[in-house]
């Protein structure tokens, strides 16, 4: 795939736009369709696209295994951390209205944080599953 010139050029042009579109979907999830899950899958799809064109070792250099594995856990930690922050500030678990002086702003902050957590976890898990499947050697027949 590396030897096909057109594919390489088109991939290098498209992948930044895919990542920006993923960020757009993530942050615009409040005003239109979107949110953490869709954005996470699009981020993973962009890196998988890179891996398909330039090879899995190149993608592993770009997004190392350690980073992907820590992303998987970090997202859940952010989500749970937001919930615990709500508890520490006086409300119940995952109460957002205590996170700021104005309860509506608190809702905004809470929703932003949990969607960020979901984005990080979903993109990390999808990418890791792809790495594991694509990096496995096929057993010779018999």
């Amino acid at each position: 795939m590396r030897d096909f010139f057109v594919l390489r050029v088109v991939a290098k042009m498209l992948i930044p736009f895919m990542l920006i579109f993923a960020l757009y979907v993530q942050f615009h999830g409040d005003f239109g369709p979107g949110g953490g899950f869709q954005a996470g899958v699009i981020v993973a799809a962009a890196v998988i696209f890179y891996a398909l064109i330039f090879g899995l070792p190149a993608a592993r250099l770009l997004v190392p295994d350690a980073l992907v594995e820590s992303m998987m856990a970090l997202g859940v930690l952010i989500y749970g951390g937001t919930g615990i922050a709500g508890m520490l500030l006086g409300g119940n678990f995952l109460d957002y209205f205590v996170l700021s002086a104005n309860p509506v702003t608190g809702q905004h902050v809470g929703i932003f944080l949990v969607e960020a957590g979901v984005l990080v976890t979903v993109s990390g898990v999808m990418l890791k599953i792809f790495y594991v499947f694509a990096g496995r050697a096929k057993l010779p027949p018999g």
Partner: protein
Amino acid sequence: MMALLVLSVVVQRNLFVVVVLSGIYSFLMATVLVALDAVDVAMTEAAVGAGISTVLLLSAIHLAGAEESRPLRYRLPALLVSIGVAAALVYGSLGLPRFSDPAAPIHTHVVPRYIQDGPRETGVPNMVTFVLASYRGYDTFGETTVVFTAGIGVIALLRGRRKKKQSEANAEIRHDA
């Protein structure tokens, strides 16, 4: 068209064709969902069903073999069971609310509160987002944990046996020759 697709998935034995057909089926399902005003769900179904799902199935076919052998001997009982289940479900569905009935219980139970008070209480126009992240945030926490667990499970099952590096493979070939 979706019925045709599904029937061809049932009959088709070449698994690569089955995977491509399931990708097409996911895209069609996404357009049906847009027609039903479910835009968030359609975006997720298109991204997940036609993107990640197809990639995973293709890599699994590469690792496990791409042809289905001859069908099971006893197919008739399975067909009769399926038709029986279909008949029972059709009979049950006659008691369900009509399509697009505003008085159906789904529209009158708790959703009017979400629709009327939600945008004001949370300041977020997208109703699906604030129900998902704020009113039902606990369920979304569980879902994130499920995704995380699936990632851990796949790592635990498929750890080890990396592809050999090209230099190692070349060294082996030179050694054997």
